[in-house]
């Protein structure tokens, strides 16, 4: 189970982060100020820290300076969007930097990327009889290899990492294709249809009108 530490002083944002993290089943702990965050990070075993920059007593930059950022990946959450702040945060060893406000799913996607980069995410994903090996870049259904294009593979992985979460076309575009461009949502539709067809997911990978797609949890019924 992935353990995530939330360091944030606004109680409503804390609740929002907890709710978002619970969607994909991450466990979360909370620190309301920088000092207790340093203690918690040094004593506990967290897979990732979500760190607010503007904190009472000790700001996020000071917190990351006191901990060994190589031990635990840190994603900064901040209202400040100056490039200099971003550079400073990343130089101090943060893995990523998110500017408030942000969508819950974007946060989850960034967390996923960071966890995979530091090898804390699982490299094998399972869904019903489908097994995806991220290291080998292979997809097997009932032990038989299924041939997917790289983009189709990424789309499938993104759905499997976000079970039961509705993913908008924009989110898919920015996560898989790496850019946000409203006019290209046809590309997403074609790839989702290909994944659906090749892996026989017509009943599971459902279309949600006016929103996007969702891969339903296997044991949902």
């Amino acid at each position: 189970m992935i353990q995530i530490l939330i360091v944030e002083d606004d109680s409503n944002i804390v609740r929002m982060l907890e709710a978002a993290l619970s969607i994909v089943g991450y466990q979360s702990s909370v620190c309301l100020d920088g000092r207790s965050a340093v203690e918690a990070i040094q004593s506990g075993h967290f897979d990732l820290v979500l760190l607010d920059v503007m904190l009472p007593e000790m700001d996020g930059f000071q917190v990351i300076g006191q901990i060994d950022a190589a031990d635990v990946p840190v994603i900064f959450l901040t209202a400040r969007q100056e490039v200099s702040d971003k550079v400073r945060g990343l130089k101090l060893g943060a893995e990523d930097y998110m500017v408030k406000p942000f969508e819950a799913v974007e946060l989850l996607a960034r967390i996923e990327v960071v966890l995979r980069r530091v090898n804390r995410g699982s490299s094998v994903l399972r869904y019903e009889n489908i097994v995806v090996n991220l290291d080998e870049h292979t997809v097997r259904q009932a032990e038989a290899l299924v041939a997917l294009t790289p983009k189709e593979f990424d789309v499938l992985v993104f759905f499997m990492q976000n079970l039961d979460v509705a993913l908008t076309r924009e989110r898919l575009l920015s996560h898989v294709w790496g850019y946000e461009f409203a006019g290209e949502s046809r590309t997403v539709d074609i790839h989702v249809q290909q994944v659906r067809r090749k892996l026989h997911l017509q009943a599971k990978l459902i279309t949600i009108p006016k929103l996007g797609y969702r891969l339903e949890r296997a044991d949902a019924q």
Partner: protein
Amino acid sequence: MKLWQKIFLCTFLLVMAVVDLTAVLLVGNSHKLLVQREKDYAVSQQENLINSLKNELVFKRWREGRDLLGDVQIKEAVVQLLEDWSLEEGAAVFHAGAAVASANMKLNEDKKAFADALGESDAIRLQIVEQGDQYTLLTASTFVLENERFLFLTEGNVTRIYELRRSQFRFAIGMSIACSAAVSIVLLLMLHFLLKPLNRVNRTVDLIARGNYEERFTESGSCEFQALSENLNRMTIAIQLNIDKLEDAAEARKMFIANLAHEMKTPLTSILGFADVLRVKKSVGESERREYTNVIVEETKRLRALSSKLMELITMGSSVLDFQAADLFEVMRGAAKTLEPVYASRGIQLRCVPVHHRAHIDRELFESLLYNLLENAAKASHPGGSVAFFCRAYEGRAAIVVEDQGIGMTPEEVKNMFEPFYMADKSRSRKSGGAGLGLALCQEIAAAHNAQIFVSSRPGEGTAVTVALEERWETGR
């Protein structure tokens, strides 16, 4: 043309003109005097000659024992005399238009005509004749011998006078050139020395113009330059102060915007996050749904409060105040009435003491000020507590006091309480819907009324806020 060049040229030309003119006049004058002396000498010499001629004739008459001498004898005597005199300079005697005798003189028509022009008069004629580089002074006069009129013409060489004049002019030109060189050197040195402070001032001005407003003028030269430096220093200090003020204002604005962005983004983060969770999650439980939507509503209200306070603050800055005489108690009652539900819901008692006093205020804005103070008092009060709201004299001025017995503030918090977005207790303040702008607004309104806000507070004991108006407190108004 530079200033030093202008001064140099003007002074130089003036000095040289005066020097040269003086030299020319002096030389001319001394020449004239010399010429006059020559003339006087020539006249007196001629008179001497004529007198001795006359004496000679008298002597001759006596020797020969005759009353009158004949023409021939006279002429002989004249010729004899001229020879005897052996004059250095030429002389000639004419009688009846013809030369009787001459010595050392080349006679020509011009000289004869000059002498003849005298005619029968007793006057003496003098003329300087130029011939090549020689100057000759001709002197003519008449005298009578034995009833016969004779013309006497002498000449003298005066070339040396003219040569003297020429050499004097040459000397004057030489002196003038030497003088001009000396004057130029002295002038240039003087100008360099005198204008040096100007260059120093100019260099400092240049430094200041480049933005080094810490530079100061340290001129110790003549008093004009000292006065200039002092004035320039005053100007620089004024500029520096203005720039500092502008920089402070820009810094304050930057801080305000950064804080505003933070205050807006914090609720937005919760709203967007929860809305997204609600949107993407397949199934959301009833209690979760209620919790999430509650947060969204709460945070949206926070944004609403922020935007309305922000609008008030902006319109406050641009609105024209409408000052009118009003009863302060009426205004206080208006503010209290608006907040009645808030006080009632928290079980706080608002004790509004009816003391009437009239003052000139913008009623709407002043009510808003009191409203904000009362709202803060309610937030700081414990449930069941009470807030006193009254009018009184404060150092002779009319003042309104809001006094609570709530949580109070530390001196540090009191110091910062009027800063925009400053919140003594962030989480508490946010829960009660504060945006951190209320007291900043109060401060603006008070400043527009020339009023001052005094705060005394003790943690755990409560806070008293006094708004002291500009107007005097007069009993019975």
